[in-house]
């Protein structure tokens, strides 16, 4: 039943999309044929949800990517732009519009749709460029894009940076609106929980929007608006600032490693020609050719053909093999792949055993499926091989070792510090980084280039974990090294990181208050929250050390190939974000091993003190039950506000009401504000399995350490 529900979830989303494409087609008011000009940042996301066929039905003849230079529209009359509201892009558009009007060709109709909303700034830019009059502007709202049955994404890059560095809250509005849409579909979440300053802001704006809906009344069918959701028991908002450590670590699941090595964007990975892919794969795997090329429209499929060797592989559950291995710790992937290939071999062999006509027929019927599986197996084996080459390099292991010992709470050894020094000395400032912006040109090198991303990841980790014992002298030395290695403009990067608290100078004792937020009216809007990534009132000198114990972050006996705890995704470290969720749902994993521990008392009222393994009484775990109570000391050590709001109509004993509802509701929506990693998704999936309760992840974007830091890094 739940599975079916998931399907309907996606279907309805997709339908909504198609419908709205129709809507905005009308809005655009360009009838007949037109050219669609897409923002590069959007094209991938769009390709997932909209079929090229649908576009054709609406009269789209050609699709271009927004780029420098004039636009060759040919004879088509209408031009439709679909872009993010960035000033640079506005200028590009203005140029193209002017160029074509000067060239004296037939007048065209221009329409600009801004995603996710139009801003005054963009209009100003267009006005200054003198083309505002020629363009009809509209806004095209982007909702959560269903990447998977249990994974929604807004595909908004650099949210975290916008929030914490620029003080730009617009992304919160987008998230809030997208959530409102979900609530419109499924009813209101009975309860909203969260952690983090901007989680608070988000919850506030959700509450406000709900009030507006209720008081607005007339606008919609207010009766349905007020119903509580029976699908979701609650909404959990986790601000990235709560857990900045997790994205910085090297992800050790298969999917995570693909994203570390190749970079995954919009649920697909693009492989260079030499990626040792089977040459027989002239087309691509059936899964890839149906969803990959047709969806992304003419531009990308043309690209694959002309480049010949480039391939996009869709990474999602439609690929049976990938579904099995995606969330596995990489240590186990090899074994499983070989098992699958043996199975496949057996299946092929079965044709020799087929004797009767009927048997042969049934074999032929299976053949298509087998071949598809064979193809995808091939590509995954080669992918895994190339990743394996990376993971076996000294370089990779040195980094991993550094990470593990930092996370384990010990200081770095001399060797490790020397290694960092070497990394800095032999840094390559122009190295390309997977998962950031441009696609990789060729096979990624076996050793990761010493890019600034890689170096900063380690240094940030050091700063986060070693916090109080981070010496000024070390910081100064690193500061100098980085500037010497990557250029003077990186002082800005370092300043950025310092301000958000990722790599903070020990001397900067002043609270991190973004100066952009200084104006009183913005503060009023925020209930005078000064966003900070530092704990508000820590009682322990070493917050992270306390957290490690309290949340049981480090698990020593990890079963990598047959996981029973979320920590398997990093081979021993469990993401703080996931542990927080486990606190909410009273998962036994967060409690210290001995049952007489201080949290055991908390378990008893819920009647499941003998809880391990969780599957045994999946009824009692799963679903948000008790809220944050009992975890105050932990929450104090984490940055940001704590949220626990009930949206139930009868305000009386809401907790009971919620609990009653929560027993039935089969799902919880977990929103990661500022991005989440593949490992966290994998961990959520594991929890879903263990608890018999769906955790659906919604995020602003899927990130890895590189893309997480990328937004802070100053480009030349």
């Amino acid at each position: 039943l739940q599975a079916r529900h998931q399907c309907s979830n996606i279907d309805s989303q997709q339908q909504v999309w198609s419908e709205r494409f129709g809507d905005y087609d009308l809005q655009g008011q360009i009838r007949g044929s037109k050219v669609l000009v897409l923002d590069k940042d959007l094209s991938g996301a769009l390709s997932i949800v909209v079929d090229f066929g649908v576009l054709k039905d609406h009269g789209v003849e050609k699709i271009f990517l927004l780029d420098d230079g004039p636009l060759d529209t040919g004879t088509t009359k209408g031009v439709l732009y679909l872009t993010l509201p960035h000033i640079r892009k506005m200028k590009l558009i203005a140029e193209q519009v002017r160029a074509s009007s000067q060239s004296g060709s037939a007048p065209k109709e221009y329409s600009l749709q801004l995603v996710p909303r139009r801003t005054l700034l963009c209009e100003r830019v267009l006005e200054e460029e003198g083309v505002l009059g020629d363009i009809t502007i509209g806004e095209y709202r982007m909702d959560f894009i269903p990447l998977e049955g249990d994974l929604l994404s807004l595909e908004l890059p650099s949210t975290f940076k916008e929030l914490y560095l620029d003080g730009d809250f617009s992304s919160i509005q987008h998230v809030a609106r997208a959530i409102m849409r979900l609530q419109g579909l499924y009813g209101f979440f009975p309860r909203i929980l969260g952690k983090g300053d901007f989680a608070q802001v988000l919850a506030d704006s959700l509450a406000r929007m709900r009030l507006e809906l209720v008081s607005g009344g007339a606008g919609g069918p207010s009766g349905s608006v007020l119903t509580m959701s029976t699908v979701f028991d609650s909404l959990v908002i986790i601000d990235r600032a709560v857990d900045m450590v997790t994205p910085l670590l090297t992800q050790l699941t298969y999917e995570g490693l693909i994203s570390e090595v190749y970079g995954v964007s919009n649920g697909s990975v693009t492989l260079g020609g030499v990626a040792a892919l089977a040459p027989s794969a002239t087309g691509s795997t059936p899964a890839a050719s149906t969803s990959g090329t047709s969806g992304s429209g003419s531009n990308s499929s043309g690209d694959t053909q002309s480049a010949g060797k480039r391939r996009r592989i869709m990474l999602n559950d439609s690929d049976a093999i990938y579904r099995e291995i995606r969330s596995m710790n990489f240590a186990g992937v090899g074994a499983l792949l070989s098992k699958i290939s043996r199975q496949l071999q057996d299946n092929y062999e079965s044709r020799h055993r087929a004797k009767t006509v009927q048997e042969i027929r049934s074999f032929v019927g299976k053949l298509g499926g087998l071949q598809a599986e064979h193809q995808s197996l091939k590509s995954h084996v080669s992918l895994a091989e190339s990743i394996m080459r990376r993971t076996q390099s000294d370089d990779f292991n040195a980094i991993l070792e550094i990470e593990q010992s930092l996370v384990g709470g010990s200081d770095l050894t001399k060797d490790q510090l020397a290694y960092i020094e070497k990394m800095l000395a032999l840094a390559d400032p122009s190295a390309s980084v997977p998962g950031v912006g441009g696609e990789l040109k060729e096979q990624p090198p076996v050793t990761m280039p010493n890019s600034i991303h890689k170096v900063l990841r380690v240094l940030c980790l050091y700063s986060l974990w070693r916090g109080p014992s981070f010496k000024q002298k070390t910081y100064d030395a690193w500061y100098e090294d980085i500037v010497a290695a990557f250029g003077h403009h990186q002082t800005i990067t370092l300043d950025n990181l310092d301000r958000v608290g990722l790599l903070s100078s020990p001397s900067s004792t002043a609270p991190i208050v973004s100066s952009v937020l200084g104006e009183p009216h913005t503060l009023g809007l925020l209930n005078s929250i000064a966003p900070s990534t530092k704990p508000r009132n820590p009682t322990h000198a070493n917050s992270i050390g306390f957290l490690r114990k309290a949340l049981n972050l480090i698990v020593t006996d990890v079963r990598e190939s047959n996981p029973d705890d979320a920590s398997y995704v990093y081979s021993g470290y469990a993401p703080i974000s996931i542990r927080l969720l486990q606190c909410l749902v009273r998962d036994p994993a967060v409690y210290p091993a001995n049952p007489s521990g201080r949290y055991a008392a908390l378990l008893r009222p819920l009647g499941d003190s003998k809880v391990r393994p969780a599957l045994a009484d999946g009824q009692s775990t799963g679903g948000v039950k008790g809220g944050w109570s009992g975890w105050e000391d932990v929450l104090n050590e984490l940055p940001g506000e704590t949220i626990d709001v009930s949206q139930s109509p009868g305000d009386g004993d809401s907790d009971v009401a919620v609990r009653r509802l929560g027993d039935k509701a089969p799902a919880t929506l977990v929103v990661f504000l500022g991005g989440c990693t593949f490992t966290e998704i994998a961990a959520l999936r594991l929890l879903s399995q263990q608890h018999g309760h769906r955790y659906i992840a919604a995020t602003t974007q899927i990130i890895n350490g590189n893309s997480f830091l990328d937004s802070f890094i100053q480009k030349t």
Partner: protein
Amino acid sequence: LIVADNLKERDVAKLVANLKVALKILHNDKARALESAALDTHIRLVQVQRQMEQELDTTLVGLPLNETLAQCLLKGNYARGTKLRAEFKIPERRYYWIKLHALVVRRDWAELARL
């Protein structure tokens, strides 16, 4: 710090002048000692780079210090490299890492043996 943003001058003389203004502003802020030191080295670096550009016949301005040193060594100008090292107080370890790397790339085994 915002001053540092708009420094993409190609003209070196102008660049240095701009940077000096920035440095002055930074100097007034005691909490920014680290940044002003970095900026100071940067100004010196740009000036040295300009000199070296004429000597070595490459473009160097805009490159970070390590990269400059590597370029210099790759061209086989070891004396200049030593001078750079002294001028910018490059730590021993970092210097030899870079030099080692450069020598291997150049396959200059004789020089390598002398290290």
